[in-house]
């Protein structure tokens, strides 16, 4: 079952590179949140009940609903519908992400002898991190940059499953609050940028140089 989730998660990474409708990006973030909650449920079933409930809340409520809905609100406010300003064509991006995922799996394959790491999650976590970075690089829109940041954050969450070490719940809450506040403030900045420049394109953010 876990492998099914991992394959599903990898599919969302591919789909991020080929689509150009903003609604679909948000839908993909919603799916990623659901997949993460599924992985958490199966992988951490033996964990202390309160910690498990908290992580399930984090994935289902925060990652699958709160953040995508918040981003949807920003999208509507700034009237961001479809983006055609990718710097690299979708079919090239598909190849790049495919190669990235294959390399991540090959890298993880070399780590089989390490007891502390679950390689199946580690490989997809690394792939998600690089896919997020790549997504940020190829888009010239601050809203898309925020979506790329969320892909990276989901990758970091997968990495935490890969090393699978329980942290005190207080620290988990603090980390979640920080990330949530970060996304909210980044979202508010996008509104600010939209109001100021009448566009969310990052091309307007190039005034600071020597």
């Amino acid at each position, binding site marked *: 079952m876990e492998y099914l989730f991992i394959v599903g998660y990898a599919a969302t990474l591919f789909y991020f590179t080929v689509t150009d409708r903003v609604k679909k990006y948000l839908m993909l973030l919603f799916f990623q949140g659901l997949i993460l909650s599924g992985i958490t449920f199966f992988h951490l079933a033996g964990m202390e009940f309160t910690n498990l409930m908290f992580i399930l809340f984090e994935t289902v409520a925060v990652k699958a609903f709160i953040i995508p809905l918040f981003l949807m609100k920003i999208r509507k406010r700034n009237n961001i519908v479809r983006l055609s300003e990718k710097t690299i064509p979708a079919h090239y991006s598909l190849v790049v992400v495919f190669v990235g995922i294959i390399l991540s799996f090959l890298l993880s394959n070399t780590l089989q002898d390490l007891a502390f790491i679950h390689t199946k999650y580690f490989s997809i976590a690394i792939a998600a991190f690089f896919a997020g970075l790549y997504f940020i690089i190829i888009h010239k829109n601050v809203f898309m940059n925020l979506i790329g940041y969320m892909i990276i954050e989901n990758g*970091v969450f997968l990495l935490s499953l890969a090393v699978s070490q329980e*942290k005190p719940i207080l620290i988990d809450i603090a*980390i979640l609050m920080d990330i949530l506040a*970060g996304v909210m*403030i980044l979202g508010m900045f996008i509104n600010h940028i939209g109001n100021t420049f009448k566009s969310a394109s990052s091309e*307007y953010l190039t*005034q600071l140089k020597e």
Partner: protein
Amino acid sequence: MFLNYFALSLLLGFITFLSRSRKLNYFLLFVFLVLQALMVSFVYQNIGVHYYDYFYIDSIGVIFFSLLSLIVAFDFYHSYKHLKKNPPVDIQHESRFWAALILFITSIAGVYFSDNLAVLWVFLEATTLFVAILILYERNTFSLEAAWKYLFISSIGLAIAFMGILILSGLTDGNLNISEIWQNATTLNPAWIKIVFFLIVTGLSVKMESFPLYPVCVDALGIAPPPVSALMTTTLMNAGLIGVFRMFSVILQTDSAEWAKSVLLIMGILSVLIAAYKMSHVRFLERLLAFSSLEHVGVILIAFSLGEAGLGIAIMYMILHSLIKASLFFQADKISYIYHTHKLRKIGHYFGYDQFGAIVFMIGFLGIAAIPPSGLFISEYLLIKAFIAQGSYVVGIGLFTLLTIIVYFMGHNMMHLLFTEERECPVKVLTKPSTMESVMPFVLLLIMMYLAFLQPEFLYNLIRMAVPIS
């Protein structure tokens, strides 16, 4: 007292945020300063005490918390003056500024005393959120761009650092307490500890203002209100460096120590090299000071790379640099206000307009350029001597050459600013300078000289205690 400090600071920040009265804001700021002073006294008396496995009062935390409290006292005055000169839109705007400043300072204090890497990360992330609000104070397109870039790249940088922390938790069976990891460092997997160190150092470079994530810091320092820049480039930079210092202390106990030293040496040299290049064509006063910070953090990382021999030099260097750089940013705020511009080519003959301010600025320049009688000169001399002594002639001579180039470019701009006429369409009507605004930067420079030349015993002992002995 320890946890009360954080609870009370949070409360003060929250009340300030809601406040709609200027007098109440000033009262709350005064209370916060008293709280800082009480906390300094408390931490001095409680070195070596742990709090709830998450915090530890060690000598390095005490040194930099005391420095933070000192700079904050000066910073509040200059922020007050800055807000007088650049009035906020309304009282809500002003309250938000003060609230963000209080919470920013509290988050930095949290970083200094964190004994748990996850807690340290949480506080560092909090500094990002509050400092972004402070950078945006002017609410123009430049501040919006600088704040967005800082917030976004910092978040990415800290996500990278967090990946390192997660892998470390796997290596240590979930234990992220630095003092405990330090004791068991020799058992860590040497290959993985390298990856952890690399991820953490790369991520924290956005807080240290060093290579590779320095550009967003330079943009932010050039645009933020100078009293905010003064805090960012001193206390926040120190917070990033302390994060690296703690991780470096761990890796020094392992077989990967030499590798880690090389990483810091490369980062340090690249930082100094980029600063030297960028200073050759810098156009704005605050950006000049920002690139100077890049140079100094490079020197500090190079000092770290010497291992135990260089850590003492690095800590002293961080203290002196903080005092001088804060003084220069406070003075830069005054200069920009007098000339109504930050552009170096439009600022000139400062000696003619404001003699006391010009003298303070010149002493600051001598200090930051590490020209005797600057305290930084002794640290840089010891550093280059250490490299020569261990046979690293290329590093020693290369560093000396780069520092000389930087002194030339910095001196070129500073001498124009102080003594020659404006090089580009001078501003017709200059604002009358206020002597009082140069007194505080001067006091900071006096403290720097006192610490550098008289080296009080308490400071010497604290630095000695801060250097980990394996």
